[in-house]
């Protein structure tokens, strides 16, 4: 399994840069000149493709968000902050935002809780650990579109496995068309997304556990700490960096989710499972409110960047402390 010690190793690289600069100082300026030229030649191709297909549309998106462009007409009417102010009167946007919050909270806590439990169980498991780990990882490499389709079958009101299971255990009253019921649509999509994500969390946390000092855990056991106390007070603090990392990745990605919802419910029934990303998609591609869709996209960008930067800060602070 991969080691995660790279996380801790990163800051050390900064120190060697100074040493290298010192070594370089003695060399003649012509060598420095070719080095700089080579460096630009090496960086330029990647930078160009990146600027053209990522940075440029990113900037354009912000520009569009200040217009009321419909995607068709030749002129882009500038409207200032109107798209942003009109968001406060947009009920569907608020619904999407609320669903997005549910998505982020549940879609982060559930896979992390499941992944942590399984990783801890597999950590000291001697028989079959690799087989279990490989198996749990399979959903993560399964394409989202297939996850969406097959869970749609499981939720199928006529012959889906979930209703059959409920009938079998005598809970007939609970059977329903899970994706077609406004009360359960979002939860049903979330379950499929959690199914697709927990193996990834398990893998990363298991890798993180490999660097935990076993003697600490043994000492706690000898001192009479039970399973929960050892996990809570000894093991989890040891893997805190990886735990924060997986939490952050699942959380940050949650702001921009589109594919699961688009594939499974299209945001429906009605707008019951609408999320921000899909709402931006709807505005930009289906109802020709490109400017407004771009504004929603920009809100997603801001939320994502704030979360990502907060996480980077948090991690740096953790490093300084340790």
């Amino acid at each position, binding site marked *: 399994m*991969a080691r995660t010690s*790279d*996380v801790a190793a990163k800051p050390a*690289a900064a120190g060697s840069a100074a040493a290298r*600069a010192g070594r370089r100082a003695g060399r003649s300026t012509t060598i420095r000149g070719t*080095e*700089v030229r080579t460096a*630009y030649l*090496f960086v330029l*191709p*990647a*930078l160009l*493709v*990146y600027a053209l*297909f*990522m940075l440029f*549309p*990113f900037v*354009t*998106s912000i*520009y*569009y968000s200040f217009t009321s462009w419909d*995607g068709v007409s030749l002129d882009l009417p500038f409207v200032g902050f109107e798209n942003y102010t009109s968001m406060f009167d947009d009920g569907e946007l608020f619904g999407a935002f609320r669903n997005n919050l549910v998505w982020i909270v549940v879609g982060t806590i559930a896979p992390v809780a499941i992944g942590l439990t399984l990783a801890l*169980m597999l950590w*000291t498991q001697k028989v079959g650990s690799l087989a279990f780990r*490989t198996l*749990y*990882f*399979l959903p993560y*490499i*399964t394409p989202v*579109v*297939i996850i969406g*389709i*097959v869970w749609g*079958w*499981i939720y199928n009101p006529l*012959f889906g*496995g979930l209703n059959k299971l409920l009938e079998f255990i005598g809970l007939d009253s609970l059977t329903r068309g899970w994706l077609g019921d406004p009360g359960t649509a979002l939860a049903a999509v979330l379950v499929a997304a959690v*199914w697709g994500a927990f*193996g*990834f969390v398990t893998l*990363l946390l298991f*890798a993180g556990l490999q660097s935990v000092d076993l003697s600490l855990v043994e000492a706690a056991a000898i001192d009479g700490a*039970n399973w929960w106390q050892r996990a809570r007070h000894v093991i989890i603090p040891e893997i805190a960096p990886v735990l924060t*990392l997986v939490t*952050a*990745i699942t959380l940050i*990605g949650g702001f921009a989710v*589109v*594919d699961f919802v688009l594939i499974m419910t299209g945001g429906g029934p009605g707008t019951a499972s609408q999320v921000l*990303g899909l709402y*931006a998609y709807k505005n930009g*591609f289906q109802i020709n409110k490109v400017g407004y869709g771009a504004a929603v*996209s*920009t809100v997603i960008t801001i939320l*994502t*960047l704030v979360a*990502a930067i907060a*996480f980077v800060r948090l991690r740096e602070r953790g490093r300084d402390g340790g």
Partner: protein
Amino acid sequence: MASVPAPAPNLYSPPNPIRRVIGPVVRYIVLALFAALTLYPLLLVVSTAIKNPADFTVDPFALFSSVRLENISDAWTVGEFGRYFWNTVVITMPTVLGVVALSTMAGYALARLEFPGRNLILYAFMLGLMIPFTSVMIPLFYQLRDMGLLGSLLAVILAGIGGAAGYGVPLGVFLMRAFFQDLPHELAEAARVDGASEWQVFRKVMLPLAGPGIAVLSILVFFQSWNQFLMPFLFVPGQENRPLASGLYLFATGRTQDYQLIAAGSLIMIVPVLIVFILFQRQFVKGVTAGALKG
């Protein structure tokens, strides 16, 4: 506690003898439960893909009640999944090559060469790691339309390499830069002292050492490009150039619900990833782990 601790105690066995048995049993039950939860949807795809149509009408989602392998070839030809498969190959292969080539060079320069603006360029790439596809999809659509690329496979290839969907050069540069930083400095310095040009140092000294990093990156890009849904769905609307993911989605949401062909098509899509996963499990896991540490 009367018992003397054994040299290597089982950390999850409390001293109480009853709990010593219950602990592992509970653990196995939980592990097995999640194994079943993991397997059921996957087996459902395989089982549906090879089901006999007559049997299908009786109970569509009973597991492995009959076997008819012709469904797969039907999906390949009648369902057009053969065409979608090749489209996916034509998208994925140049994407992997492009990301690897561009990121290896840029990652090397950012890790090992010194030049003005290095940090600025590095931060620009890091920004690209954080911006989600959702944030660029709308303007990118119109940009590709204006460039005359919309609907072509090149649209997905170029935007993919650029990093719009998360597996492009920002990720590659980040991984390759970290990889080159970890390589020892002495070899390159020795070559420079011997009069090698910067290009020769890269080509003859550093590149031969970059194999493991390139392998990890290739597999990471391969699997994300192969599995991606939204970008080709948006930028390649026509049937001609459709890859597997959007082909499957549009087939599954079409008017006729041919579950067996959908399942067979899913199998066609998932098998290449599974083969790569089995063959290169170590690099695969390393790539996913390293890719996750990108923050």
